[in-house]
């Protein structure tokens, strides 16, 4: 029979397509079947028709479609056996989309809702119905019907009692809501018609053949209610109302629904309901009799907080997160400190729920709560309950979590890396600074505490970002604590050193859990990918770490580290990276113990540098030069020193690097904040600068004299850097020898040279040695010329010099006032105020010269 009917519909379909007959004629022909009193017979008839339709729907005319739709709609009212076939036929018709007569979509659906009965005998039916409705969601026409469709749906669902139909209705409502149908003015109606069933209270009858559970209905309804923020204004009051119920399942449902909707809503939807929601949530947690309700309440608090934290604020909008947290803190914070422990736990749990929800919340809550907690911990002798309390406040900042284990028992204190220096002094100064004049037994326990604190800090500081924060604090502690290095400090430094090195050399990120690192990070390798910059830049963190260690702490894998750093500094093309690598290298070399190993290391380095520098076509000359600049031995007696310096000097006339070399002298003479200074325990020779100058100035002068005109400015620049950084006394004594060069420098077109020469001269002019006095005419002429420089700094510096020149012995200067006063008239009208004021001051001084009552 089956095979026969299959063949028959194919036959009919073909005939239809060939135009042998129309579909309506087929319907008529099936009349006997379709009107049979036997449902199965009718079913077969419909089935045949539907099968044919499936093949031929594209060939139908509008009129035929219209008729068929009416026919099928009517069939929906028929026996359930027929329904699947009816659906099948409708599916075919519906897929015609644009050919559907207007309004038919709505009426089909209406009929569906009203007439369909889901039966256990036809298990696929609900799916079929839903897919049919699916079909409806494709045509934009249906969505265009929008509000009417919604209205139709609302009408058909209204008053429904049968759980099977309800489930179906919820499915459909979900589609409406989720697929962004235009709810129009029926939003509230749609909400009403679904929410009247909330919270679901359904007890399936015994031996229920349909197998629908309360759970299914609850979940289906929840999806609808929480589906769109447009329901927020209705849903939230409903939830608050239902939370009041005595029935536990109602409470649970409400809380779970709240949690669900908070994950899709935004702060503007929740803002006005926060006080009401909080009041109910608080009540549920504070006065709970059920663990399930309590945990549901806490979950709701959490998602609420997360939702509020997510929102982007306008400049003039209120921060709802703040508002909410204020409410929470107001009600919970004080309980933490009360001797009556009854509400401690619930309060703590609520605070925990909020602070684990987001960075912002955790920051806010912990900042408010931690200080008093710590105070309690420090002040109480009986710490048991505080320990428990501390344990309960666990701050989970999303993906990252660092635990700190301190103390006799397991106190877990949160250390979110959202914090900057705030928590460190807060947590550690007390235990760390104690221990001055205590009894032996007290001191021992304080020692123990301190040791643990340090170990804990070491554990926390295993992340480079935190190291930068914790290092200053630790250094502070170290300097204010004992003068000698005690064991626990060494422990910390060792820990730090080895962790940093293993991270940078081997990509060992084992101590940085829960981070999304790329596999096999190699921070000291140059990679020619787009992310190579960001990775190799990290070397400046390494520098901050290892170069600041005390000399007694050994850096593990030093040789390998040096090798890698050398390579990085000579090959990388990113300035920050290769400079930091060079600095790091230099810092480590500086602290290396003297001896053959160090000598050969330096030799090798210089050789490498020379190779690159000497080859004019090398692409890494700048890198090599940078390394040279940093590695130059501070130890002036090192045998490689002359080689190093002569290389630097020779570079002053190098076409590519000359200007870099000249500026490099400023680096040679000054203190770098990053490495090679006393603070970082570097080996810095005393009177370095004087000695540098004394030993090298002659060479500079020589080089200057020998250089061609265009190259002279490089020498002048280098010289001015050197002289500028000399101590005053040395400047004064050395000046006569340098004077010709300095005067020459005033003519140099380079503005940097001009400024540095002028600022170098000015203090000397205030108390001029005779060598300068003889040069007065030159000085006046050249400084006046510079008052018209386009660079503000030059103008100011030259005016200051002119001011200083007025101090020269009277008999020397008496010829000049007229000239100077005339020349200074123009700067009085300079467009920059600072220049004008210098000019006015200088001019007034010159007026007083040679004037009665003047000097």
């Amino acid at each position, binding site marked *: 029979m089956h095979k026969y009917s299959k063949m028959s519909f194919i036959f009919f379909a073909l005939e239809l397509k060939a135009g042998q007959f129309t579909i309506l004629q087929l319907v008529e022909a099936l009349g006997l079947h379709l009107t049979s009193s036997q449902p199965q017979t009718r079913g077969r008839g419909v089935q045949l028709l539907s099968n044919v339709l499936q093949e031929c729907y594209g060939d139908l005319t509008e009129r035929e479609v219209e008729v068929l739709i009416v026919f099928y709609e009517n069939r929906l009212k028929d026996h359930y056996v027929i329904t699947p076939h009816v659906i099948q036929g409708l599916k075919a018709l519906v897929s015609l989309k644009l050919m559907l007569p207007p309004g038919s979509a709505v009426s089909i659906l209406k009929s569906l809702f009203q007439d369909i009965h889901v039966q256990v005998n036809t298990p696929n039916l609900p799916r079929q119905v839903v897919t049919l409705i699916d079909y409806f969601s494709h045509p934009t026409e249906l969505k265009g019907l929008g509000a009417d469709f919604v209205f139709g749906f609302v009408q058909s669902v209204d008053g429904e009692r049968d759980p099977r139909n309800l489930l179906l209705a919820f499915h459909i409502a979900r589609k409406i809501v989720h697929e962004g149908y235009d709810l129009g003015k029926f939003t509230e109606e749609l909400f009403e018609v679904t929410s009247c069933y909330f919270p679901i209270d359904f007890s399936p009858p015994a031996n229920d053949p349909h197998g629908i559970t309360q759970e299914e209905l609850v979940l289906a309804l929840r999806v609808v209610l929480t589906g769109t923020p447009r329901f927020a204004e209705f849903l939230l009051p409903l939830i608050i109302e239902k939370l009041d119920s005595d029935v536990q399942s109602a409470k649970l449902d409400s809380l779970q629904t709240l949690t669900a909707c908070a994950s899709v809503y935004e702060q503007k939807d929740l803002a006005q309901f926060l006080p009401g929601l909080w009041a109910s949530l608080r009540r549920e947690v504070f006065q709970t009799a059920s663990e399930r309700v309590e945990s549901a309440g806490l979950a709701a608090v959490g998602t609420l907080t997360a939702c509020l934290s997510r929102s982007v604020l306008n400049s003039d909008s209120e921060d709802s997160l703040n508002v909410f947290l204020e409410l929470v803190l107001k009600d919970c914070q004080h309980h933490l400190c009360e001797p009556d422990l009854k509400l401690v736990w619930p309060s703590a749990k609520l605070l925990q729920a909020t602070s684990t929800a987001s960075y912002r919340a955790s920051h806010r809550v912990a900042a408010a709560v931690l200080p008093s907690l710590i105070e309690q911990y420090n002040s109480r002798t009986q710490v048991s309950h505080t320990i428990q309390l501390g344990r309960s406040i666990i701050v989970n900042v999303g993906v990252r979590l660092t635990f700190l284990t301190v103390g006799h028992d397991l106190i877990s204190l949160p250390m979110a890396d959202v914090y900057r220096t705030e928590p460190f002094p807060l947590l550690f100064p007390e235990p760390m600074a104690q221990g001055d004049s205590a009894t032996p037994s007290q001191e021992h326990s304080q020692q123990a505490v301190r040791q643990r604190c340090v170990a804990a800090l070491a554990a926390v500081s295993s992340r480079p970002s935190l190291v930068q924060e914790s290092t200053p604090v630790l250094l502070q502690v170290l300097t204010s604590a004992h003068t000698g290095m005690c064991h626990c400090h060494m422990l910390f430094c060792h820990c730090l050193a080895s962790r940093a090195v293993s991270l940078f050399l081997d990509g060992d990120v084992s101590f940085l859990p829960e981070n999304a690192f790329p596999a096999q990070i190699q921070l000291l390798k140059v990679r020619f990918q787009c992310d190579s910059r960001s990775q190799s830049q990290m070397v400046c963190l390494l520098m901050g770490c290892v170069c600041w260690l005390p000399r007694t702490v050994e850096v593990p894998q030093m040789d390998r580290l040096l090798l890698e750093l050398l390579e990085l500094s000579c090959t990388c093309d990113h300035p920050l990276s290769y400079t930091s690598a060079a600095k790091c290298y230099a810092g480590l070399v500086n602290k290396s113990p003297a001896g053959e190993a160090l000598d050969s290391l330096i030799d090798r380095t210089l050789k490498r540098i020379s190779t690159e520098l000497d080859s004019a076509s090398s692409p890494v000359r700048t890198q090599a030069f940078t390394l040279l600049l940093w590695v130059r031995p501070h130890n002036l007696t090192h045998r490689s020193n002359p080689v190093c310096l002569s290389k630097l000097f020779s570079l002053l006339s190098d076409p590519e690097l000359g200007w870099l070399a000249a500026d490099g002298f400023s680096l040679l003479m000054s203190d770098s904040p990053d490495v090679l200074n006393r603070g970082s325990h570097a080996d810095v020779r005393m009177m370095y600068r004087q000695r540098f100058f004394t030993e090298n100035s002659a060479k500079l002068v020589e080089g200057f004299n020998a250089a061609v005109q265009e190259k002279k400015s490089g020498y002048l620049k280098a010289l001015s850097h050197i002289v500028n950084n000399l101590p005053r006394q040395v400047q004064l004594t050395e000046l006569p020898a340098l004077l010709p060069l300095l005067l020459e420098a005033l003519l140099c077109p380079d503005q940097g040279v001009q400024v540095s020469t002028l600022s170098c001269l000015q203090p000397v002019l205030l108390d001029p040695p005779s060598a300068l006095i003889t040069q007065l005419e030159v000085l006046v002429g050249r400084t006046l010329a510079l008052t018209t420089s*386009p660079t503000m700094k030059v103008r100011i510096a030259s005016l200051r010099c002119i001011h200083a020149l007025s101090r020269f012995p009277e008999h020397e200067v008496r010829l000049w006032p007229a000239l100077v006063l005339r020349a200074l008239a123009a700067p*009085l009208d300079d467009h920059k105020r600072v220049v*004008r004021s210098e000019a*006015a001051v200088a*001019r*007034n001084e010159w007026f007083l010269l040679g*004037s009665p*009552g003047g000097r």
Partner: protein
Amino acid sequence: MSVGTRLENTTEDEDEDVADPIDDREIFDILSVSINDPEHPLSLEELNVVEQVRVRVDDQENTVGVEFTPTIPHCSMATLIGLSIKVKLLRSLPERFKIDVHITPGTHTSEDAVNKQLADKERVAAALENSQLLEVVNQCLISNARTS
């Protein structure tokens, strides 16, 4: 009442391309830092002889007006003080400015006479050629310049 250092928008100060117009405060600073009252150890600013509110400058119109208040109504030094102020401004400002210095109305018994003297260009020039007078004026102007 001494005014604190000017709170500038320092980035503009440093910016070569931004022109700073001459304003009242600038003129006041010129006067307050380095003119002494010959009879007092304090500066004119400290004595409230010159105040910023009584300084008016118009950079566009090239005019400067300063009102000064002698310490007592029959202060005999009023002319000298006025002259010192005028000289200071002449030495410190571009030539284009027309400088008007006079006594705050109602604060001196001979204010009309003094004002007339100060306003008279030829008389001022002649006065400044008198070396004794110039000496005294210079003495007023000399002191704080050293310490600034």
